[in-house]
């Protein structure tokens, strides 16, 4: 299985992004469909992986003609990209909106014109705006990280727990933080130091070096994003600190290798699949070709696919590493 998705609803072939040839009845070439894809700018590793994975997935199918719009963080531009897809009469649209609420109207419009929309990662504000929504579980991610820390430190009431968040103004960051503090609250812990980076290596390094300076004694750190985690680790190494353990987020191959090595402060990471958009492309293809999901009892493609957020630790890392994304 590719990342994390096997416990959830997902067709078989889609799991295995790492393998070359897809298999299964649904993967047999059908009529060629044009799929419009729009996502934010690849200004951080995970987002870069998203776009790359989507493109690779489309290349895998000769019956997909993927129309990729330039990545943008300007919702105004993103709206016109979707408008243009509608104009061009594409067969399906996959959108990872920069801001879900802001793209709801135009997505609704596409749906009304009969073009199925697959909403990835950041949710629209109304369900009618998308035929399928593929979501990571941000709140669940926070919870998983929190629960892991609870497990390790639950008996230490005065444990110092730090959090290195991503971009604070994004709802997904807020969800993650909420899940994290909710889970911690259940074992009477709380976040004592919190900084936000910006999902970049550089931002992670800066935030972490300041954080380490501000908190001389830490027991655990949760870092929301493994891409910025490269910078975080660099800062930790530089400060020569190892009195704590670190839980990552997103599940990049880099981090998993750290976990595998066993001598790193990184003990675990919570997966947030970067293949969501690739899944979205697949689903869009099915919708456009009016195929159904072969792996579910229900014949139709489901409304909502929420990907699971498992925790990767030294115990199960070999299971996840082969398919993790190189951020």
């Amino acid at each position, binding site marked *: 299985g590719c990342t994390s998705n096997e416990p959830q609803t997902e067709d078989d072939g889609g799991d295995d992004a790492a393998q070359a040839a897809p298999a299964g009845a649904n993967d047999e070439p059908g009529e060629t469909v044009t799929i419009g894809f729009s996502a934010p700018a*690849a200004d951080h590793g995970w987002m870069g992986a998203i776009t790359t994975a989507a493109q690779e997935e489309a290349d895998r199918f000769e019956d997909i003609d993927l129309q*990729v719009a330039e990545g943008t963080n300007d919702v105004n531009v993103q709206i016109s990209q979707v408008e243009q897809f509608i104009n061009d009469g594409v067969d399906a649209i996959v959108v990872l909106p920069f801001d879900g609420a802001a793209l709801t*109207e135009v997505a609704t419009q596409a749906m009304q014109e009969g073009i199925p929309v697959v909403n990835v990662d950041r949710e629209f504000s109304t369900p009618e705006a998308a035929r399928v929504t593929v979501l990571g579980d941000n709140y669940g991610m926070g919870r998983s990280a929190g629960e892991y820390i609870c497990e390790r430190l639950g008996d230490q009431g005065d444990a110092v727990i730090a959090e290195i968040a991503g971009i604070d103004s994004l709802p997904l960051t807020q969800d993650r933080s909420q899940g994290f503090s909710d889970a911690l609250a259940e074992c009477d812990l709380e976040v004592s130091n919190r900084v936000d980076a910006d999902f970049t290596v550089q931002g992670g390094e800066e935030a972490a070096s300041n954080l380490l300076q501000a908190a001389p004694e830490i027991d655990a750190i949760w870092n929301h994003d493994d891409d910025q985690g490269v910078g975080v680790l660099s800062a930790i190494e530089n400060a020569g600190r190892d009195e704590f353990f670190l839980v990552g987020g997103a599940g990049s191959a880099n981090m998993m290798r750290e976990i595998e090595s066993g001598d790193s402060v990184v003990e675990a990471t919570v997966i947030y699949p970067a293949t969501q958009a690739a899944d979205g492309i697949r689903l869009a293809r099915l919708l456009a070709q009016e195929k159904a999901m072969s792996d579910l009892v229900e014949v139709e493609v489901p409304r909502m696919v929420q990907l699971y957020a498992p925790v990767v630790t030294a115990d199960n890392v070999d299971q996840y590493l082969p398919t993790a994304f190189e951020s």
Partner: protein
Amino acid sequence: MSESPSTAAEAPATTGQQTVSGSGEPKFRLGLGHSLGLVLALVALLVVGVTTSGERFVGLDNIMVILRQAAVIGVVSIGVTFVITAGGIDLSVGSVLGLSTVWASTVATQTMAEDVHWIVLVACALAVGTVCGLVNGFLVAYGGVVSFIATLAMLVAARGLAEIISDRQTQIVSVQGFLDVFRGNLLGVPVLVWVFVIVAVAGWFLLARTTFGRRTIAVGGNPEAARLAGIKVRRHTVWVFGISGLCAGIGAVLMLARTTAGTSTHGYLLELDAIAAVVIGGTLLAGGRGSIVGTVLGVLIFAVLQNLFTQNNLDSSVQAVTRGAIIVLAVILQRRFSSARRT
């Protein structure tokens, strides 16, 4: 060369050809003539569009998509044209736009708008934008803070304030009257586009045909001469920044209509796009020469480019590289054509 320091490093080229310009005709007057290179670049892009994507590219539908997209950045860029012509710079427009959308879409404002009239919502956005602009203007004119720094500070502060007000939540606009009007069409053309056209024409008129415009050019061209000629340079500076803020407020209204949402992330990095459009349009970054027509063309070129890329199946990184090359080509083309006209 005292007037072009900001582009000073590129002066030799200028000296060689531009300052020797013979037709003493003021350049912003020539409107399309001066912008011939830009028009050609635009036409070239359209031709490429038609070749690669078929006639649909210049179909009415697609043109409207382009224009609707251009509307927000266009309105903002027109305000920025004034500031740059007056010799300043405004880095804050993007985040002021964000703040205005947030303020206008708070529950309080929306409730009031529903109780009274949707115009309240519009007025709120415009007021927030204008006030931010005026604050910039005061800092620059009376505080003696260079405009780059003053508006940079405003950029940071307005974004922060927007986050605080919205609690970083995206606020949905539900004032139906507002949505009906601004998301609608008038004579087959989206209201958004009408607003853009009106602001552009008003901006052109203000800059090219009124005493206000003349003062703006004088203040930007040689502030000392303007002052000695009795122009109240400081007060004028405040107004110019006010206009830029007002335009950001109008842009916020359009953004609210287009996205039906207000959020602090609206307008992120918009300032760079706006300044780029203004400068490509032929307004001197050093001040003293401004062209609204050029700005509009600059905005359209960027919007068409965007549209063109979406049509073509290019990898988005390749798109970025291509965009860089095209920007340079467009500018060189423009230089060629405007200097060819002169000699």
